[in-house]
């Protein structure tokens, strides 16, 4: 929208002063428009607008009050930063006025007052800084707890973010912990989600409340939650992962503290354990699940099934296996504490973890199991690599690249069938890179399947260097080279796409030629000597094939 004649804030301020009531909303909106059109203006309010913002908060029109809440909040929170002579204003007055707008009868005003950035900074300073007391902490805490139930969803989400950031402090400052806790519990039924990715501008109230109760544990008497165990446990089934995670954490804390009895929430935990997607319930859930299995015979089977999926193919997620895996530790304790017997791989793993809880730090459990349970591990690998080949998994998966190599390092027999599966679809980058890693580490296990993989592959020129590299490394296993592939390699030597493509293509061609396969056109002969002299070796400073005299002889330039 083009700037109006009066896009200057001072001018708008003067117009607002003299405007009729029915014109004031339009002028207030213009103020907001000007501020969003030129962000620099936030740091340079005309002083008259300071006091005007307070008057705006008393206006009859909700739009004027909304802009008043934004302006007064801004001056109150950031006034010291922007206006060198802070003495010209009393920030506490502005902060107090902006905060009180949270009680406005119009949702749009409360939304503006609940801006999570400004309000968060208000709360932060008011609770932390003993010198700055715009309002009593108790009042701030009580008001915000009440606003968690604002009828307007936009307000609730913004207030949720304030609790997300300052919940424990607010709980600590609340004059009536019992009411605060009850009110937090009542948010669990609020279905409105926080829509956010990285910066988390807002949070759902139930997420914020669970987090507040967990992080603020100690600020209130845990027995206040004794009657709400079921309501918290119900959140183990929430659609949002973070909500489930905080619910599990809070339950674990409450059970540890003796505030709730594990029996009371056992059914919910067993049902939640039916989920097997990785970390769907957070890192504290396994301990909670273990507690149930240790007191209830009929819970052992489902909890065991849940914990087992941590190391089987059911877990396909990226996994760095570090920091003492809570699922495997719970599994280990369950297996050892229980009278019944479990599957041999689980028994073995339980023993390994019992001896060293860090055994899986940096080691995939399937690799640890390879020496003793080759058939079991081979089955898990074949399932996982089948998914990778079919495009169900990608680079971010546990099955990408290293796992098969690490398993083969410990017991080569355990990867039986995996090279053949990878060979089915080398046109996928993640599959090809996995195959390349395996061929490099264990050529004796995988190189022989590579020629077959290229027999029917449809590849375009120029050929990616990893293909050429794989062909070179497996040259001795080739008995014939499809004409299309030889042609593609020859074309790639002359490609203008990348020096690396050219280098690896000529290397693959010469390597095949040296194995007695006639893939190299006669005019390319001079490249053979260069190859044997190491001219194209990756570890040195490879020569660009196009920059050689051989290229001239070959008619490449």
């Amino acid at each position: 929208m083009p700037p109006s004649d009066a896009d200057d804030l001072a001018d708008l301020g003067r117009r607002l002063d003299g405007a009729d009531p029915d014109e004031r909303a339009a002028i207030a909106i213009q103020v907001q428009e000007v501020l969003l059109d030129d962000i620099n203006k936030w740091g340079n309010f005309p002083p008259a607008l300071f006091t005007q913002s307070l008057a705006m908060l008393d206006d009859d029109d909700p739009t004027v009050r909304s802009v008043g809440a934004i302006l007064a909040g801004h001056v109150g929170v950031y006034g010291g930063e922007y206006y060198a002579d802070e003495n010209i204003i009393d920030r506490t007055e502005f902060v107090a006025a902006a905060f009180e707008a949270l009680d406005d009868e119009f949702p749009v005003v409360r939304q503006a007052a609940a801006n999570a950035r400004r309000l968060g900074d208000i709360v932060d300073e008011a609770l932390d800084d003993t010198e700055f007391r715009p309002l009593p902490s108790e009042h701030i805490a009580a008001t915000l707890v009440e606003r968690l139930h604002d009828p307007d969803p936009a307000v609730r989400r913004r207030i949720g973010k304030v609790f997300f950031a300052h919940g424990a402090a607010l709980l600590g400052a609340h004059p009536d912990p019992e009411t605060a806790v009850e009110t937090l519990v009542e948010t669990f039924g609020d279905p409105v989600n926080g829509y956010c990715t990285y910066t988390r501008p807002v949070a759902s109230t139930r997420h914020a409340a669970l987090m507040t109760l967990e992080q603020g544990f100690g600020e209130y008497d845990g027995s206040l939650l004794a009657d709400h165990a079921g309501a918290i446990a119900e959140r183990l089934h929430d659609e949002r992962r973070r909500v489930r995670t905080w619910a599990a954490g809070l339950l674990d804390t409450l059970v540890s503290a003796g505030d709730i009895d594990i029996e009371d929430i056992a059914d919910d935990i067993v049902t939640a354990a039916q989920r097997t997607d990785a970390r769907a319930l957070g890192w504290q859930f396994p301990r909670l699940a273990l507690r149930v299995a240790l007191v209830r015979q009929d819970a052992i089977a489902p909890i065991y099934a849940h914990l087992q999926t941590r190391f089987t193919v059911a877990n396909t997620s990226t996994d760095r296996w570090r920091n003492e895996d809570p699922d495997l530790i719970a599994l280990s304790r369950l297996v050892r504490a229980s009278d019944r017997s479990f599957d041999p791989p689980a028994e073995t793993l339980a023993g390994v973890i019992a001896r060293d809880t860090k055994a899986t730090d940096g080691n995939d459990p399937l690799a640890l199991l390879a020496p003793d349970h080759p058939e079991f591990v081979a089955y898990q690998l074949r399932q996982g690599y089948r998914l990778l080949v079919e495009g169900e998994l990608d680079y971010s998966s546990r099955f990408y690249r290293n796992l098969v190599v690490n398993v083969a390092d410990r017991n080569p027999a355990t990867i039986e069938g995996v090279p053949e599966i990878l060979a089915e679809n080398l046109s996928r980058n993640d599959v090809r890179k996995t195959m390349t890693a395996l061929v490099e580490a264990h050529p004796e296990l995988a190189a022989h399947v590579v020629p077959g993989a290229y027999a029917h592959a449809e590849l375009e020129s120029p050929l990616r260097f990893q293909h050429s590299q794989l062909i070179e490394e497996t040259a001795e296993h080739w008995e014939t080279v499809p004409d299309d592939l030889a042609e593609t390699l020859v074309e790639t030597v002359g490609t203008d796409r990348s020096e690396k493509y050219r280098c690896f293509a000529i290397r693959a061609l010469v390597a095949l030629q040296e194995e007695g396969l006639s893939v190299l056109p006669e005019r390319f002969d001079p490249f053979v000597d260069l190859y044997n002299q190491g001219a194209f070796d990756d570890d040195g400073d490879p020569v660009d094939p196009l920059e050689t005299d051989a290229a001239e002889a070959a008619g490449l330039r």
Partner: protein
Amino acid sequence: MAEHQYWIVAELAGDGDPEVVLEAGLDSEWARGGQQVDDSVVLFGEYHAGPVSDLRAVSDHIDRLVWVASQEGGGGGTSSEYYEDFDESTEPTDGLRSTPGRWWYGEHFDYYRMRYGIHAAV
């Protein structure tokens, strides 16, 4: 990965089906979620351009629409557009662009709510 984000609030037409709008809005590489809230559908994702054009295909179900994007890089920026009558081809009725800064999304939503009374996503 660049930290872009977008939010869309699509106010449902009188006989608009929220499921249809959600399905169209979530069928995008960058979509990260959405839900019906009162008489609106809220969508969000990790890119600076939201699936506004995809939603035109189901615009029979939508009355008004606001899109706010937070864009990273070069100081960042916040952009938004408001459609009073969202259909297959209309141009936005109003729009804002704030630079630098990718964190003005709240103030953008405030503006559209003050001026047009449309729901805010964040």
